[in-house]
């Protein structure tokens, strides 16, 4: 039945594909839909994961190895010991933090793919605080470094947001290009003011010990970052589904016309969701340098941004589901080395699995979109 007057509206935000007869407005959020059909989405995500494991078994078989043994090694490598679990949780933490921010952005139809650069800036800022705040006690220094890291990430995202709002440079382009700038900035400070003199590798001096994130379980590498990530996920979940601000984001995910009609400022919405995502990614960068490396290292954020996007999509852009999706990626990558060591299957196979998972998730998405259109 008739739902809209056909008229040539100025298409401002890019993913409206009304010309092709697809539903106008929000393709992404419309496909991901509501919280309500949670179980169906969970089933779809699990199906995508299982299928990707099955398909990834093919190259393993071709190379003459047993995929079941390889996956067993993978699983043991990921969860076989307290140390490996601690390692995997640490690995998941920045993914979860950055992923939940990306999920919020995508929900509001803001295609922020700049988590990588935002993580880099968060890392730089937190490192600067850690290196220069040696006089402060840990209870002060760590929160301060995390906070400043978050602010730096938010600031980096704000640049892209301002370019988008003031100059019409699409946020995909802005955030993508700022990623490269962010990575180069890390190199720049490491070769200059923050570099460790005499080190063979571009890295900063080791942080003073009171700047290290305290361990969660004594005797392991597990630091408190995972708690921060879980708290962030739950806060984002509450904000998204249970506050007026979250309702605004969901409206922005529809059409700009509907959002404006509902009294929601598109400019403010876009700006604030970018700041939030930037702050989360910046925090992730801070956690990574303060909790894992204890120093700033060149290229410490490489690949995180795109994993964050993949995790957000695997989670159906549902903030709470980012938690299992992020853990999945973290554990997968942790097990990869064991698989390579024990079975001789290259660890890069997990990237194939990650990629395939995305392909299957997007397939499921396409199918549900098709159904919806009918």
């Amino acid at each position, binding site marked *: 039945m008739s739902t*809209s007057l056909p008229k040539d509206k100025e298409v401002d935000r890019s993913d409206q594909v009304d010309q*092709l007869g697809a539903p106008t407005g929000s393709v992404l959020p419309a496909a991901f*839909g509501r919280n309500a059909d949670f179980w169906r989405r969970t089933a779809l995500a699990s199906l995508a994961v299982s299928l990707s494991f099955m398909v990834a078994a093919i190259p393993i078989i071709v190379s003459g190895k047993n995929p079941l043994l390889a996956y067993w090694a993978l699983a043991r490598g990921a969860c076989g010991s307290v140390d490996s679990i601690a390692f995997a949780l640490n690995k998941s933490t920045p993914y979860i933090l950055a992923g939940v921010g990306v999920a919020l952005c995508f929900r509001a139809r803001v295609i922020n793919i700049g988590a990588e650069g935002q993580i880099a800036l968060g890392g730089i800022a937190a490192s600067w605080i850690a290196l220069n705040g040696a006089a402060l006690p840990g209870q002060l220094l760590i929160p301060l470094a995390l906070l400043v890291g978050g602010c730096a990430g938010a600031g980096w995202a704000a640049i892209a947001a301002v370019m988008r709002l003031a100059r019409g440079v699409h946020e995909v382009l802005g955030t993508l290009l700022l990623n490269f700038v962010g990575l180069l900035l890390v190199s720049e400070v490491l070769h200059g003011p923050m570099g460790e003199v005499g080190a063979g590798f571009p890295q900063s001096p080791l942080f003073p010990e009171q700047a290290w994130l305290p361990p969660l379980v004594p005797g392991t590498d597990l630091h408190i970052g995972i708690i921060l990530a879980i708290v962030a996920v739950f806060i984002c979940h509450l904000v998204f589904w249970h506050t007026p601000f979250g309702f605004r984001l969901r*409206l922005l995910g529809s059409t700009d016309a*509907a959002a404006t*009609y*509902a009294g929601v400022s598109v400019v403010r919405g876009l700006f604030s969701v970018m700041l939030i995502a930037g702050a989360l990614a910046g925090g992730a960068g801070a956690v990574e340098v303060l909790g894992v490396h204890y120093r700033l290292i060149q290229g410490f954020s490489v690949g995180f941004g795109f994993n964050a996007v993949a995790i957000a999509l695997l989670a159906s852009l549902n903030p709470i589901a980012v938690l299992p999706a992020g853990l999945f990626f973290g554990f997968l990558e942790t097990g990869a080395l064991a698989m390579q060591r024990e079975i001789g299957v290259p660890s890069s196979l997990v990237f194939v699995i990650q990629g395939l998972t995305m392909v299957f998730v997007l397939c499921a998405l396409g199918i549900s979109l098709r159904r919806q259109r009918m």
Partner: protein
Amino acid sequence: MSHDATPPEIVSLPMLEMYGINKRYGAIRANEGIDLSVAAGRIVGLLGENGSGKSTLMKVLFGMVKPDAGTIRFKGEILSDHTPREAIRAGIGMIHQHFMLVNAMTVVENIMLGWSRAGTWLRTEQVAEQIRQTSKTYGLELDPGALVSDLPFGHRQRVEIVKALLRGAELLILDEPTSNLSPPEISGLLAVMQRIAKQGRAIIFITHKLGEVFDICNEVVVLRDGRVVGRSPIANATRSGLANMMVGREVSSGLIRIDRPTGPEVLVVRDLGLRDSSGYQRLHDINLTLREGEILAIAGVDGNGQTDLVEVLAGLKFPTTGTITLNGRNLTRTTVSDRLTAGLAYIPVDRGTTGLVPGMTIEENLGLRDFNRPPLRRGVRLDHGSFRKEAKAKMSEFGILASSPDTPVQTLSGGNQQKVVVAREIGRKPRVLIACQATWGLDPGATRFVIDQVIALRNRGGAVLYISSELDEVLMLGDRIGVMSNGRLLGVVPRTEVDITQIGLTMAGSSSEVSTLP
């Protein structure tokens, strides 16, 4: 236009037969035991209100929806579990209400799109020639090289028709094809349809406009609540009979406009002008006043600045000149939510992308413009209980049919969707209501409902600015009546002094004799 006597030998060989089609969506029976048969060379009108099951039935036929039960036989072959692609291959063509065209491509490119017979290496010239041929045969006057975005609406529809014909459609389904056309375009389309039928093809014509049914259909089938409630050759049908079958009751004469003295001025608009970013003056010196308890109805052909006017008044755009005052408060530069708080409700023209968020639920759409105020907002939280409570109240008050407030709005029929918008905007008991094409695309029953609600608001003392391109509606509703033409508001007069000829002339653009009145 006339309908020809039926050649009997054609009737005996139906091209399409559908038996016992059943389709349920949750608790709602969209189709229940529907039989339909269409013979070659015939035009069958499928009549029914929004939500009566017409669209579902056609989606079943075209393979877009799987029926729960039923058989489809087309040209002697059973069609089951088919996709739209297979339906096209079998010879069924569907012209959707919303066109499936790529605006940035030419006519010939659109027709070649996804068509295997256009060749692996595109045979653009041959296809263009075929288009010229077909369009000559049926009097379509299509230029294959024209860009779709340059075509007027009626011509885009013709592209769809040619597309279906070239793909070998012997049965054409036209889903409310006339709802967006101007009167001359409508008569052109009807003539084309008759020519198509004369060539031995069959047409299913979905509509709720009775006049068109009588103009060209050979027979008519009426659906209501998912069942066939009447079918007859057109010669045996009467207008009032069909109308009553469609709505299932006598169409009431509607709410009575009570004579009431108009109250004080509520909305005052002075010298309003709007220039768009390309420098085009879209609104010229609009002056109007609205008093309590009156409806100012504005007629006009679409695209004469009506949308700009309502968007400026509702706060979606800011005017370049002039002022808007509500109850003595200058609202010219205030936000949408300020205007809402001041008592200004707005029913936009476009419920698909502005008035509603199709993916959200009924309760969320009912709270779409109030989520940031109590009772829906409590502190920093949304009160989901209040959403539910308000929605239930409004659904029963405004008769919104759905299994639960949790239903996504996109699953509702057009009429029910508009009821959601009306319930939200009139349900807030506004001082001023601005309604733009509030009955667009609605069937008679739903149209009646919207109009009754608007009159009831006016009788309670609300002020209404009602904009419509349906002159009948404007004349029925307006206490004062004006015309928009080329971004100007012209000839506002009390209903007692209306001169229909003058309004017609003004709408057609010969406004020189009419003075601009506040």
